[in-house]
């Protein structure tokens, strides 16, 4: 999948303001951003549901604006808002959808893949939110597509339903599917994705793997500790004073070379004969990186 300079304008409002993306075969790609950032608009353009204002888009080598039945045979979509097929059981819904495809997957195997064996004869409307989402994934998978879009698959789920959904999505990796996942949960992207792009205000503000996103791997670490009573922080050696980032009863330092800094602290403390039992070295979490990245955008 390849996207160049994608724009979508609604009147004066530019929902998507020039996006470039490359997603490789077999990759799980997370499109991460806050609500209203342009995620769903972008996905709907990629799925062929919306027209674009400008830019080049190629999904499985085809412009989704002209995607025909042959193309739809190769693409599956789990939409953000879609109820179960009314009046049909899980199995019947899958039978209906499998009829749409020329070479569908086996129905029982697909039901097992999303863990709905116990619910196969239950009406779709009677499933819980998490089960319904798994039925959605099954319906998107039944045509055995190469590429699957998952638009905010776990929004509104309780933690255990999210875990189960994650296992199902992780299972897609083993099937060799390419997955394009949108989400506003950092932990979801971190857990599932090979690569993440962060969108805010219709623009991509960062792209990388979960470990390198936003320069996270080279960002300064935060070191915190509490000095024993009677030892003011002014007594710290000058090279540590220079790293001071704040004081709220604790000493907080930021350092690009956390090991050297911790070594200096250890030298100084053992020279003074004191211990620092609450010494804490922390690297920025993906969440902090993400909040920092999306804060500046409108």
């Amino acid at each position, binding site marked *: 999948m390849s996207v160049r300079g994608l724009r979508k304008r609604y009147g004066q409002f530019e929902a998507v303001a020039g996006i470039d993306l490359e997603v490789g075969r077999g990759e799980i790609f997370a499109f991460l951003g806050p609500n209203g950032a342009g995620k769903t608009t972008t996905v709907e353009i990629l799925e062929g549901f919306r027209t674009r204002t400008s830019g080049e888009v190629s999904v499985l080598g085809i412009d989704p604006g002209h995607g025909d039945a042959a193309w739809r045979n190769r693409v599956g979509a789990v939409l953000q808002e879609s109820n179960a097929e*009314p009046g049909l059981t899980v199995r*019947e819904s899958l*039978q209906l959808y499998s009829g749409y*495809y020329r070479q*569908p997957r086996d129905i029982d195997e697909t039901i097992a893949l999303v863990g709905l064996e116990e619910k196969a004869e239950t009406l779709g409307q009677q499933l819980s939110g998490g089960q319904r989402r798994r039925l959605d994934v099954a319906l998107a998978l039944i045509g055995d597509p190469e590429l699957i879009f998952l638009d905010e698959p776990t929004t509104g789920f309780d933690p255990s339903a999210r875990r189960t959904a994650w296992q199902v999505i992780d299972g897609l990796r083993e099937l060799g599917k390419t997955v394009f996942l949108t989400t506003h949960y950092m932990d979801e992207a971190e857990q599932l994705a090979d690569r993440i792009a962060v969108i805010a205000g219709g623009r991509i503000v960062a792209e990388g793997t979960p470990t390198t996103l936003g320069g996270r791997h080279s960002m300064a670490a935060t070191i915190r500790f509490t000095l024993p009573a009677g030892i003011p922080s002014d007594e710290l050696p000058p090279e540590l004073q220079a790293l001071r980032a704040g004081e709220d009863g604790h000493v907080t330092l930021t350092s690009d070379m956390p090991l050297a800094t911790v070594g200096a602290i250890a030298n100084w403390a053992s020279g003074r004969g004191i211990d620092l039992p609450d010494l804490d070295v922390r690297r920025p979490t993906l969440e902090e990186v993400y909040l920092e990245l999306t804060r500046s955008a409108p």
Partner: protein
Amino acid sequence: MILLIRWLRRRRRARLGESPTTTTAQTTAAARGPLMLTLHQARYDLLAILRNRQARFFTLILPLLFLIIFVGVFGNHVVGPGSMKASAYYVPGIAALGVIAASFVNLVISITAQRESGVLKRRRATPVPAWVLIAGRTLTAVTISLVVLAVLLAVGRAAYGVSLPTSTLPGIALTAVVGSITFCVLGYALSTAIKNEDAAQPMTQAIMLPLYFISGVFIVNTNLPSWLRHVASVFPVEHLSDGLHNAYRPAVKGVGIVWTDIGVLAIWFAIGLAVALFRFTWLPKAADA
């Protein structure tokens, strides 16, 4: 009636049970061509409607209740220029209502609900052609219409002795099928003007109730002032009910097709089709707001 529904459902289940794993390349509906795919779609649409309690009541039970009430109250009056018994008038009149309930009312409600809940959008994310979805749903409505019609005519005959001349059976069948297809297309057209599922039922009733009163469904229309009959003659309900009434008129010769009624229904079909083609959307309207 209930027994008939149960029987249909059992048959359907049995048939579904026969082919639980129709998943190989040679046997999928899509692989067997668009006609089989349309039948495939109709089969599941029909199953879903039969499982819907509200749809069962409004399309099957309510027309039957109307028939019982109207024939019960007015059945022995003598009506019209041909001096026919009112019961022979109400059977085809209420049959028109049954066809409209099964085509128009039911379709507007289910299509609006499916559109707003993203069901139509998800179907469109698959390779199934749009026209197959529309044709399958229309075929479902025509099937239900014919069943409702048959039930009403059978009850009319068994309970009220209103028998249909076998010679006019083709007329009644053609009128019912053309009427049902026309009201389906009008249903697709109307659904484009309805924002959400809750508005669908009141909207269809608001349109149909006055038309039922002036189109020979609830009231014998020869009793109406002529200006009101002129108004009614513009709308399709009058022509569906007249086409069905015609088959019961004692004076009628031949197969009982009224070509002017078929013609007016065809014009409404064309109008509905034009509106639906220009305005029908598969995506939820709420999301566009």
